[in-house]
């Protein structure tokens, strides 16, 4: 009996392992393999085609001596922080307001969520157009008689990142809204009754009771948004192409340009390795605590 059970146990686990084979293969070959490969190349002198030589940290020295890369990193930090913060605040507000038993809820929800269906290229092109002083809001306002009206974010080095954040928030806030709205709908009504009896103001209930309950939703939405921000390339190309000057360059575009346009694989892989390490340092603890830490043993 015991042996039979053991055999059964092993066999059923074997099936589970088998089922995970595609995933394991993809992780090993497509993800870990390419990452290892690109880390390897970042220590070579590769230009257009990979070379197998070893030049130590030369590419990294060059990378961190390149002002465009440093600008890209700063821009990335700025965009990431403001994009995530504004998306979170706006998405939360939208969700809370929609949850106030409003009429035409479907209309509001759709209006806030549909941008997420648009590609980054379209998002970038549209906002480039609307914010362009020659064509968009500035010109319209001036034609209407407000001759001193200025909205030149896109063409001004000091403000171009605001324009980028605006476009990305437009694209991503709806996702936070949808996730949090779903969370709000799942909250026990007794909780509200209790807080009402205690006379706690609504905003305090949201800030100190509801949002902590929605933490998993918040983390998930931030993870999804972070993935899009790390990869952000199309939007920048469509909207500003990194300009004016280098004012809106981002790391993914630096990598792409060096991989293809500038045929500089060594530098590009050094840059992507740097990004990987950065992401690892920032994201890994979050992912670990949220998805693996407490459940890792019980799953």
């Amino acid at each position, binding site marked *: 009996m015991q042996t039979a059970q053991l055999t059964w146990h092993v066999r059923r686990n074997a099936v589970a392992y088998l089922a995970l084979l595609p995933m394991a293969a993809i992780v090993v070959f497509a993800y870990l393999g390419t990452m290892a490969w690109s880390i390897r190349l970042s220590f070579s002198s590769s*230009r*257009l*085609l990979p070379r197998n030589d070893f030049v130590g940290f030369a590419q990294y020295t*060059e990378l961190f001596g*390149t*002002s*465009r890369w440093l600008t890209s990193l700063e821009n990335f930090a700025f965009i990431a922080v403001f994009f995530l913060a504004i998306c979170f605040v706006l998405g939360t507000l939208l969700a809370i307001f929609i949850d106030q038993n409003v009429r035409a809820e479907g209309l509001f929800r759709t209006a806030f969520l549909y941008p997420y269906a648009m590609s980054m290229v379209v998002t970038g092109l549209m906002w*480039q157009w609307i914010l*362009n*002083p*020659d064509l968009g809001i500035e010109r319209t306002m001036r034609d209407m008689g407000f001759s001193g009206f200025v909205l*030149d974010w*896109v*063409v*001004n*080095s000091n403000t171009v990142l605001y324009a980028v954040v605006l476009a990305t928030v437009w694209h991503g806030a709806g996702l936070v809204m949808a996730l949090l709205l779903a969370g709000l709908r799942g909250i026990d009504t007794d909780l509200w009754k209790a807080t009402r009896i205690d006379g706690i103001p609504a905003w305090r209930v949201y800030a100190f009771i509801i949002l902590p309950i929605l933490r998993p939703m918040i983390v998930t939405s931030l993870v999804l948004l972070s993935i899009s921000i790390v990869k952000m390339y199309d939007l920048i190309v469509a909207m*500003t*192409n*990194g*300009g*004016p*000057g*280098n*004012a809106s360059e981002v790391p993914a575009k630096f990598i792409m*340009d*060096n991989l*293809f*346009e*500038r*045929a*500089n694989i060594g*530098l590009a892989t050094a840059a992507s390795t740097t990004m990987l390490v950065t992401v690892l340092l920032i994201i890994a603890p979050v992912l670990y605590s949220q998805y693996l830490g407490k459940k890792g043993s019980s799953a």
Partner: protein
Amino acid sequence: MFHKTKSLAHTAMALTIGAGAAHAQEAEVIHFWTSGGESAAISVIAEAFEERGGNWVDNAIAGGSAARGAAINRIIGGDPSTAALFNTSQQYHEIIGEGLLNDIDGVANRNDWDNVLPAPIVDAIKVDGKYYAAPVNIHMPLWLWYSSDALQEAGIESPPETMEEFFAALDALQEAGITPLALGGQRWQENLLFSAMMTNVGGHDLWTSVYADKDEAAINSPEFREVIETFIRLKQYVDDASPGRNWNDTTAMLISDEAGFQFMGDWAKGEFKQADQEIGVDYGCLPGLRADSPYVLGGDVFVFPRTDDPAQIEAQTMLVETITAPDVQVSFNNLKGSIPIRSDVDATALDECAALGMEILSDPSRQAPDASQMMEEYVYGSVQDIITELWNTDMSVDEAVSRFDSALRN
């Protein structure tokens, strides 16, 4: 799906028409000429190729780097196209070094390219004594275009011939309330403007000694500083909405007489033509702002990825012959706005600006290589990064010089 049906139709045609005869040479060509004028130009080549019995399979991908990337990926992926539109910078040398291109020496020698083509073009495409690319056109990227009406309105009698006259004209335009210099604030356009200052302020020697020889003395010379200073001086003549503007929207400012001048390659002609503007009446072209201004030879080439398939090699040979045939050259370049790669063609069919270009080109001392051919891509990339930063920030001349120095001589 369309392509499938199209090639099926072609195969069917070949079977019915040319039954028994030689099978039509199928050539898949990757290129990035997707706009109206460009499509018209490439269709000249496609038609000529089909007239010779070939079967042109068009693969257009917008954007030079996207198309080149696709071509390289196809080569690496073992599924190369028959030909691809390319450039002749370091990428070109590297894929030749890896043995990924077929040479086209047969056609080249038969047609005496050594003597028919301008020397800088030969230098660019000939590697280790062999030809690996077929040049298709010569683009001079640094023409100065002007709107005749705008100049007239600002009281400018005749187009400028020197830098001093140019600045005087810019001032006059500014006073008349016209945007003096139309510029699209994109990296490549800012770079183009800087190149124009290199050739017009610095001249031929500075152009090659800084970019090709990367000569320390030249980079730190007063002449190069003057180039940088002149470039900075131009900032005040550009309108605020410049950043990010496309080059053709910028040319439109000249067409509507909102702006006076624009530095742009000869492809700008297409825009004027489409707007029914006439050379010499509505707009004009200046090859430079000094009597001996260098004529920079940019342009496009086709490369032919390595294959051992005799049918494909035959198709490649036929493509080279089609592309460089004198009649194809004239009609193609008229549509593309560029000038033919060979001097032995009928120049009467060319427009005024192209004819002027051909004439200048006949003087070898004014021929100059394109910047992209004098530097490896990554060096040129860094140079462009400096230029765009120089244009968009308050970088000092000293810092610019030292940045150029480290980028070029690293």
